[in-house]
């Protein structure tokens, strides 16, 4: 994924994966409304709109549908009967590394959130997110950025915090957050938008995005105990 054409290109083609048909139709309606409504109030610009190109209610359907439709962004439910979002990620990513995943779930459990992030999702938002914010999040992951809900930011901060008695990190580059990354995460957890964070820290939005992406990479690749434990608690790693 080139990462630069996100906000400028055509409509973002979204594929919905959720085992609740009711929820799929709700998200579809909200995404449509989000486009026609206030759209793009924040950050990524209001260039392209969002179209839902397909839906799937199970892992198998999702894998087939994504392979066939080649969407830009997949909105992925974490909990599904036959393996869940992580299973979809595992089966799609090797063949289609360009498809970006945004996890969307009712779950607040760190195990779920971290597991799906480590399986390759570029962001995690809860299902209570408003339509406008969801459109923003879709645009943002389409543009190659990461999307951290305040709760995910909290989890990651917790996972990377140094506790007394903890084993020293084996790979400092991956297992530690820089001070700046920590600041950014903290502001994310406080409910700040990227633009607000940029203003607060006197850096550009682009720099904020870079920091968040770096945090995402570390979250996905680090072997810190909490991260691997959370992920393995769900047997998803």
């Amino acid at each position, binding site marked *: 994924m080139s990462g630069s054409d996100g906000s400028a290109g055509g409509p973002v083609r979204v594929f919905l994966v959720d085992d609740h048909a009711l929820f799929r139709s709700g998200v579809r309606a909200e995404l449509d409304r989000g486009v026609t409504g206030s759209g793009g109030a924040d950050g990524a610009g209001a260039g392209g709109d969002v179209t839902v190109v397909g839906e799937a209610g199970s892992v198998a359907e999702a894998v087939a549908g994504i392979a066939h439709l080649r969407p830009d962004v997949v909105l992925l439910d974490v909990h599904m009967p036959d393996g869940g979002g992580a299973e979809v990620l595992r089966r799609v990513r090797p063949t289609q590394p360009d498809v970006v995943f945004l996890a969307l779930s009712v779950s*607040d459990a760190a195990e779920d959130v971290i597991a799906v992030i480590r399986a390759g999702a570029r962001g995690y938002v809860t299902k209570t997110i408003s339509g406008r914010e969801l459109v923003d999040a879709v645009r943002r992951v389409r543009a190659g950025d990461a999307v951290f809900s305040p709760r995910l930011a909290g989890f990651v901060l917790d996972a990377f915090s140094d506790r007394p008695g903890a084993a020293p990190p084996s790979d400092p580059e991956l297992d530690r957050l820089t001070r700046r990354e920590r600041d950014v995460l903290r502001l994310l*957890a406080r409910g700040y938008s990227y633009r607000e964070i940029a203003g607060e820290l006197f850096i550009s939005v682009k720099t904020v995005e870079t920091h968040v992406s770096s945090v995402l990479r570390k979250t996905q690749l680090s072997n810190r105990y909490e991260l691997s434990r959370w992920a393995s608690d769900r047997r998803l790693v």
Partner: protein
Amino acid sequence: MTDPATTPFRAVVPRPPGPGPTPARPVPPAAAARPVPPTAASTPPPAPTTTVPPASATTVPVPTASSATVPVSTVPRVRVPGPGGPVPVASGSTARAPGAPAPAHPLQRHRSGRLLGGVAGGIAAHLGANVLWVRAVFVALMAVGGAGIVAYGLLWIFVRQEDARVERVVPARERQQALGLAALGLGIGLAASALGNSSLGWIVGPIGVAVVGAALVWREADEAQRRRLTGGGRRAGWRAGLLRVLLGALFVAAGIAVFLLGRLDLGQVQFGLLAVLATLVGVAVITVPWWVRLVRDLGEERSQRIREAERAEIAAHLHDSVLQTLALIQRQSDSPREVARLARGQERELRSWLYGGAVQGRAGRSGAAPTPGSGAADSLVAALAAAAAEVEDTYALTVRPVVVGGDRALDAGGEAGTNGALRALVLAAREAMVNAAKHAGVDEVSVYAEVEPDEVNVFVRDRGAGFDPDAVPADRHGLADSVRGRMDRHGGTVRLRTAPGEGTEVHLRMPTAVSAGQAAAEERTA
């Protein structure tokens, strides 16, 4: 109490409520005692209470004149409800009102309230006779070449046992009486065999002893099974049960030994022993698969029961919470605000139930909150979540607290100053949430708490209207009093960032390493 003179067995049979032969009587609470163990016989007749002799008094049943002739009339009539609750109607042989027609009673051995195999009780119920007479007949038959014990044994083997749900209570005294009768019968049989000097006598005597032993063991096995089925009382009395089994085995061994020695043919004894040994080994080998299956079935049944119990618990919870809320939502469907409030509250409740409470972050747990208004929250995270839940419920907006850095007890014992300070912090945060909910005009408030070793920071932020702090009239209390005053008193600080149109963020910082004296002084001045 229709028939106080003779009450050998009290049969309490579960049946649908309705007019029965006798009206149901209230159950005395003290009567909820287990049926008396069969061998606790030689204790003196107790006063008319329902106390049972301790199960550990495992003595060999000795026939005594007193225990065989105790009048039954002083025995209180007690009834124990079956496991399914109070059971309405008694239908025993003597619990019927005089003159009422006997209900059809198939011949079934009694399971509950029996002494040996429940044979006598079953026959008594079947014939509508007093169990005492049935037993007396068996005893009398013992005099005829030991026919009584043979008849009893055959009936025991061939008569079906009744349903396990039937519960009845036998008064201790009647039990002693029956035991006395049994011992008497045994004595008569032995005497008859000794006097008669017939070959039957030689067989009946020792075999009789062996049969008694076997009966003890079987009965204990039955009892153990019942205990397991009913799920309770597993520990209670296992020692007595073991004693009974050992005693029974001793009886069996002694009986067989006497029988064999009576033959006095060593060669035959040896042959017999070998044959028995071979048979036992053969039976053991043959029945191995059966035992294995039995054990496996038991394990499966147990896990099945656990699963069902869990399922029932989940169903009960969903019924009490989610279904009720859905019903409420349907009824309130014309009020979106109320629907949102209900849904939010229910979601919070379900989350905390599913994901295990308010602890989010470090433990990998999440969600909110104990129920709003529960002042019982004693950790910082729980208290914050409870406050957020309360504000959510009261002002119909979303408050999602995110806590980083682990939890902290509100009344941390180690640091004396922490106590009031953290509570004040939570209250101040709650006030800030209320302010945002009231004045910002938003439907979401962000709450972020960061717990560090020496201080706790809470940020309450909204993206709403914002205001000019200098323009707030002096008589407005909210932020000035509830937030700033509270924080100041406990050594905390408040930073307010707001401007019209840019939302508001209240930053509460509370150091947690305040010395005790300082905190106390602050409390006094407050």
